[in-house]
């Protein structure tokens, strides 16, 4: 394959689709399971065309029961398969929460390492698409707190492709949060480039005055914030965390030692969210470097609101800029 053939311009959803296809071709043990993942190709078409090409035995439309989906995926993993499970929307992962927390996360430890749990749980997450209740949530903190799980979220097509490759190769369970509002955003994917480690953050924009840390859907927003701030003469560094568990504290620390200020942005409620852990640990690591407390921008401590209020609920350009201003004012 020539260099040009391996570089494609793909929407994020399509990049995942291609990544699944690559994995299915490479390893007969890889399976895709979930509600409507077959003929329909999933409600977001992420699995479009896969059943046609890989058959009903590998692309499995399941009964409507999330605990059953994850529970049988665990059994399949015990038999040597590598299931990639789709949860249709963020808000529907909770019926599977018990299987994820008490079984998937702990099986490897329970067996003192004698069994592995190479299961990927794909979850389209986050708001911004004007959906009804339960379709816009960001529950990543509820998984990051649980030892035994890894939690990641790509922000762009290239990462979506490669992080899915790496998640499927991982012998640990990976909760793979897909930023659904970015599914249609296009980006270049080089299917032959060797990617960096799955759990490493990336500086996506260099800056000197303050660090913005985000993952998944909020990375794009943070880039826009940095653009807007640049017009006001402020140089913001943007860090795409990519992984929520583990968090790449080394990279955050390196950035903060340079910029001395940090704002964390996520859609999930601030209270007990990722920002809390980042703020706590970075404050510990960088106590003498920080010129301002780590500030957090995220959802409020209220049930995710109806669509017509989500713009007010979610972090937006102005709210992040406001936090940047407040941090810079210290």
């Amino acid at each position, binding site marked *: 394959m020539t260099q040009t053939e391996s570089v494609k311009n793909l929407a994020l959803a399509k990049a995942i689709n291609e990544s699944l296809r690559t994995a299915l071709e490479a390893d007969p043990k890889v399976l895709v399971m979930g*509600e*409507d993942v*077959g*003929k*329909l*190709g999933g*409600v977001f078409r992420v699995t479009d065309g896969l059943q046609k090409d890989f*058959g*009903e*035995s590998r692309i*499995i*439309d*399941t*009964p*409507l*029961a999330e*605990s*059953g989906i994850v529970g049988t995926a665990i059994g399949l993993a015990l038999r040597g398969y590598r299931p990639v499970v789709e949860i249709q929307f963020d*808000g*529907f992962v*909770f*019926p599977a929460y018990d299987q994820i927390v008490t079984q998937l996360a702990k099986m490897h430890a329970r067996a003192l390492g004698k069994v592995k749990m190479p299961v990927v749980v794909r979850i389209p997450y986050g708001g911004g698409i*004007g*959906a*009804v*209740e*339960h379709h816009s949530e960001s529950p990543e903190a509820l998984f990051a707190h649980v030892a035994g799980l890894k939690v990641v979220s790509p922000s762009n097509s290239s990462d979506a492709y490669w992080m899915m490759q790496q998640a499927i190769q991982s012998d640990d369970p990976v909760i793979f949060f897909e930023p659904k509002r970015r599914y249609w955003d296009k980006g270049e994917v080089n299917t032959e480039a060797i990617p960096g480690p799955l759990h490493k953050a990336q500086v996506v924009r260099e800056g000197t005055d303050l660090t913005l840390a985000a993952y998944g859907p909020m990375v794009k927003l943070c880039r826009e914030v940095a653009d807007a701030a640049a017009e006001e003469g402020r140089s913001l560094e943007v860090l795409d965390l990519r992984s929520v568990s583990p968090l790449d504290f080394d990279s955050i620390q390196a950035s903060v030692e340079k910029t001395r200020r940090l704002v964390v942005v996520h859609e999930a409620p601030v*209270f007990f969210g990722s920002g809390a852990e980042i703020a706590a640990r970075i404050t510990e690591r960088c106590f003498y470097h920080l010129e301002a407390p780590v500030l957090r921008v995220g959802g*409020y*401590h*209220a*049930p995710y*609101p*109806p*669509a*017509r*209020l989500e713009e*007010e*609920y979610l972090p937006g350009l*102005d*709210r992040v800029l*406001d936090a940047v201003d407040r941090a810079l004012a210290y």
Partner: protein
Amino acid sequence: MTVESTAPRKPRRSAGTTGTKSTAGKRATARKSPGTEPELVQLLTPEGERVQNAGTAAYDKYVADITPDELRGLYRDMVLTRRFDAEATSLQRQGELGLWASLLGQEAAQIGSGRALRDDDYVFPTYREHGVAWCRGVDPTNLLGMFRGVNNGGWDPNGNNFHLYTIVIGSQTLHATGYAMGVAKDGADSAVIAYFGDGASSQGDVAEAFTFSAVYNAPVVFFCQNNQWAISEPTERQTRVPLYQRAQGFGFPGVRVDGNDVLASLAVTRWALERARNGEGPTLVEAYTYRMGAHTTSDDPTKYRADEEREAWEAKDPILRLRRFLEASNHADEGFFAELEAESEALGRRVREAVRAMPDPDHFAIFEHAYADGHALVDEERAQFAAYQASFADAEGGN
């Protein structure tokens, strides 16, 4: 299809669910129509003829004294519900609603069961029970708030004993069971009805609702609208035997009714409610029907099912069927149909106008009902939000 029958087969499976490749078209024709389902309780044929035989005997009495007026009422309910539903679908296309879940094709199951209820009974719906809501006297525009994105339901469930729409599949069956346990504790003789779909039958919560209601002998009717599809998955992805049979293993009766037959739906639900009131505990009613439209306005059924299937079901239309019966029995004249047509149009207009007039919620509504007794953090965040909002007003004022 690849779902196995319960009969032994050899040679042994080779690769799990991989079976013969079948097209949606083949599936559709292979499928039994409701008329040929042996276990189906049907009182009106698709041609509008009244059936009375051994299979209907147990249920006939529940509609024996039904008046022409009541029959016209059922017809009216179905027509108006369908009109409302169509209006909502077009409001979605016009961008007034974010989404709509159409009940097209399921009017008889919903109106029949909905009209079997007493005022003091309590309903736990999914997100598709617009016809039941109609029977309960819920203002149809109330149903649209969540689909427009101005609230997540928001009506008073106790206003019409009609609980909020529940989106998490199967959850509400447990709420219904608990509510029914409460009814029993109160010594009341009300009944509770829980709606759910064929897809929902796979959720653990539904099985737990069966267990709790059986063990506590709760006065609840589980009303499953088997509309053949859970988004893109046919019912065979959820079960390999008819769903009504599920109840038996939990120790209560299940019955399959023709869900496109409003009279049978009414009779069977009345029977089940009577059981509940008499202290005989739960009953499962499987209303065998068809989702004529897309799952929701976001869905594209051409991806997974054949037109022929839909066409076969069109011949069994619930409204047409009752119209034929009304006409053949001279229970309704031209005037009735014309008036209803006008009423229908008026309803559509009213709904359209009401939706367009629906105001966006105040921004502070985000914080409004997170808690009944307040929460310090919500107060703090509300204050920050207010200050933040005010900073724009200040900025604008300052310009």
